[in-house]
């Protein structure tokens, strides 16, 4: 019997698990996929928004602004890549300048620190590649770029290290109330808990409907992106937004924490689960992005992807206890969901506490994590690293300079990866310009070796994404 059972281990579920793991509680997290951070969390703009955009008074506004410093602190403690580069919301017309003023005022109301409206000259100084058409911008210094999946992983790992039980490959199929507690049936077994928090992302309406009256509907939207080679990474120094349109924050151009350039997203309603990219939409993104930064070298694109967003028919996050006592929704966590996740964790923890879940701080909470990232070390540190562990001397991913040591480290850390993409999300192998062309056979070999499995069983990503189809004739003989 768990005190709290969390459904879904995206960044929101992980943030809550992390927060709860600071307390003397028994907590479990159920994730239907074979890894954490594989839904909305893995494919988005990878940004901590400053918080000027959400309507004042909404939960989105409050939790976004509260969350930014909180997330930065977590990144520092748990060794998650995060860079405070600020954002610029660029105006291309007098109308846009009016919008910028409105956003400034809204931001001030929301409590966003350091906002400033800057003119053309200052804008150009910050962004030498910005379009000559740009007139000015809203400067939000608290905005940052982050590695979303590493944030999720780091919080989930820390929760696990502090006693939280995480069950992967555990899709919830049924929830029943039994007296004061819930019985949760999943593809991996049956779990019992006093409280359930639904953090199921784009599936949160379905999970909600398993036990409570349907009261919201997820309307999945996708946003498509370009990810460009590092040689284009210096086309932007900050997160460059355009003035927001109807239902999107607009196409952004931004460096990533890994040094690439990310361009996107657009916004379109899609069928649930549809993460395909479309040629016309990509063309639209290219054209719009060039309005901000005309000389983006799209010839250096290394990957297109689409991220799914849990948009709902309600214009705010849906967070709270349902009519079923002990069953909580944390749903509709669309943008700025990543930015707000850490504060959502605290908010829900407080909510549980207010409902009578006892929160006694653990005396021995481990609140740190260290990851060796070989390519970030100095020459001297590299020398020492290889001396200590020769596996750091064998570079597996040549584009991102990821070593065998780092891959082995991540396989033996809490929440080990079981797929090539799981390794990629943890250490960046295969994330570079050759997109795993050279390193994926080696990563596969290392995974099989370290996990003690047949290479044939190692998959690309989620279950069913098999890579190998058999032995060659020579090997069969």
């Amino acid at each position, binding site marked *: 019997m768990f005190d709290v059972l969390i459904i879904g281990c995206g960044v929101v579920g992980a943030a809550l698990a992390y927060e709860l793991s600071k307390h003397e509680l028994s907590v479990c997290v159920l994730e239907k996929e074979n890894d954490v951070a594989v839904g909305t969390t893995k494919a988005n703009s990878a940004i901590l928004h400053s918080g000027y955009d959400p309507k004042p008074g909404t939960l989105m506004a409050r939790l976004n602004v509260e969350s930014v410093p909180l997330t930065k602190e977590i990144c520092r403690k748990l060794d998650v890549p995060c860079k405070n580069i600020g954002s610029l919301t660029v105006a291309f017309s007098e109308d846009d300048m009016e919008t910028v003023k409105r956003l400034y005022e809204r931001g001030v109301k929301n409590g966003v620190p350091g906002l400033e409206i800057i003119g053309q000259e200052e804008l150009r100084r910050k962004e030498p590649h910005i379009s000559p058409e740009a007139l000015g911008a809203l400067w939000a210094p608290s905005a940052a770029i982050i590695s979303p999946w590493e944030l999720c992983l780091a919080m989930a790992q820390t929760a696990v290290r502090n006693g939280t039980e995480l069950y992967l490959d555990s899709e919830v199929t049924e929830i029943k109330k039994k007296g004061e507690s819930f019985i949760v049936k999943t593809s991996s077994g049956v779990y019992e808990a006093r409280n359930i928090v639904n953090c199921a992302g784009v599936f949160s309406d379905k999970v909600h409907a398993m036990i409570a009256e349907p009261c919201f509907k997820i309307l999945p939207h996708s946003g498509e992106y*370009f*990810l460009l080679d590092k*040689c284009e990474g210096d086309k932007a120094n900050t997160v460059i937004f355009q003035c927001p349109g109807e239902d999107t924050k607009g196409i952004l151009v931004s460096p990533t924490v890994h040094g690439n350039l990310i361009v996107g997203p657009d916004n379109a309603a899609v069928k649930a*689960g549809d*993460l*395909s*990219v*479309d*040629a016309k939409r*990509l063309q639209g993104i290219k054209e719009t992005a060039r309005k901000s930064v005309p000389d983006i070298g799209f*010839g250096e*694109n*290394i*990957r*297109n*992807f689409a991220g799914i967003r849990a948009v709902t028919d309600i214009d705010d996050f849906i967070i709270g206890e349902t009519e079923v006592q002990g069953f909580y929704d944390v749903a509709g966590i669309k943008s700025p969901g990543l930015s707000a996740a850490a504060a959502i964790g605290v908010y829900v923890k407080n909510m549980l506490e207010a409902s009578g879940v006892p929160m006694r701080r653990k005396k021995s909470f481990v609140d740190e994590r260290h990851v060796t990232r070989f390519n970030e070390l100095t*020459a001297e540190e*590299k*020398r020492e690293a*290889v*001396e200590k562990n*020769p*596996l*750091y*001397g*064998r*570079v597996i991913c*040549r*584009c991102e*300079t990821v070593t*065998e040591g780092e891959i082995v480290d991540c396989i033996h850390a809490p929440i080990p990866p079981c797929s090539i993409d799981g390794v990629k999300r943890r250490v960046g192998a295969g994330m570079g*310009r*050759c*997109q*795993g*062309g*050279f390193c*994926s*056979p080696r990563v596969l*070999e290392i995974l099989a070796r370290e996990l003690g499995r047949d*290479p*044939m069983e190692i*998959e*690309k*990503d*989620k*279950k*069913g*994404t*098999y*890579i*190998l*189809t*058999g*032995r*060659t*004739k*020579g*090997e069969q003989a």
Partner: protein
Amino acid sequence: MIYDVIVIGGGPAGLAAALEAKNEGAEKVLILERDRELGGILNQCIHNGFGLHHFKEELTGPEYAGRFIEMVKNTDIEVSLDTMVLEVTKEKQVHCVSKTEGYRILEAKAIVLAMGCRERTRGAISIPGTRPAGVLTAGTAQRYVNMEGYMVGKRIVILGSGDIGLIMARRMTLEGAKVLACIELMPYSGGLTRNIVQCLHDYDIPLYLSHTIVDIKGDKRVEQVVAARVDENRRPIPGTEMTFDCDTLLLSVGLIPENELTKNAGIEIDKRTKGAVVYENMQTETEGIFACGNVVHVHDLVDFVTAESQRAGRAAARCALAGGVDGGKTITMKNGSAVTYTVPQKIRTGNVEKLCELFFRVNKVMQKAEIEVLDGENVIAHFKREHLAPGEMEKIALPRMLLDKAAGSELVVSVREVE
């Protein structure tokens, strides 16, 4: 200790350069190779067709590499395997790392860059659709099949008719897979004619020219790909779609010289070749740093890589032993009509013994073509060819006398079709 010549990369280019540097009198020569063995990509090219020019006989990739590896073993050339070079500086320091030797900073009088190339990926051409398993580059598939002994699919479509794609069409067929089609964006194949015949025609694999992939379907593994005809601007024509039920899409959509080390060292890159700008002796714009093979421009035949790399190795040794050479007047080669690039891009006439070989590619298929070298308005040399194609690198030899006589500091290479 300072090496005379450090060669980065132990594939065909690096092997030939190191051997030739040794032959030319360099004493301390070192090859740094990132893989577990020498030979580079040849090790996975188990088909034949290598060596016809250099050895005058037909060898497989591993055999071709094997001969050079054997020759290297018979010298005192040092080899560091499983060693990754992280940085090269203009001061000719090489930072590298390996499990056995740790992190080292080595110094050399001359450096030869021979890192080869990598394959263009799905992202480089933004193929729409889902992102399931089963989309991989032909070279990665080749590694799985030929080096690791695993098959990567049962029903295959290949995008791109570059040589690796064609070779893999045959290889997968021989391993029992069904290759449904080879799809090529351009109106002509990007590969060698002999490969079209021996790898597609001989196995009844259809080649769809002027087609591309417009959609990939499948959530977990590829289930279908959709191809469509393209117009003269290479845009898909609606209504011409064909759907293939397959589990694998192999990409053979071009190779890119792998020049991150070169760029980080601040060495000038030619936008067209995506390799370093080189002189007649394969020296880059940085004195003492040379480059050869696919890291300079993508070759079709390894035999030409060998010849080019021997030139680089020879020059690197001379540079290490004697220091820089005064090459006399410098001529810059320019691309005229129908020419996409030339290598070398610069010629110091004083360094040319009798002939300077010039390599180039054309941008379209041509029958009966005339190649002209222009010095301003004057045609100073012309050559005839019966057939030219973008997929086949072409070469002409310019006599030193002609170069010396050139009035300007630029020569233009231009190609036109003749009636």
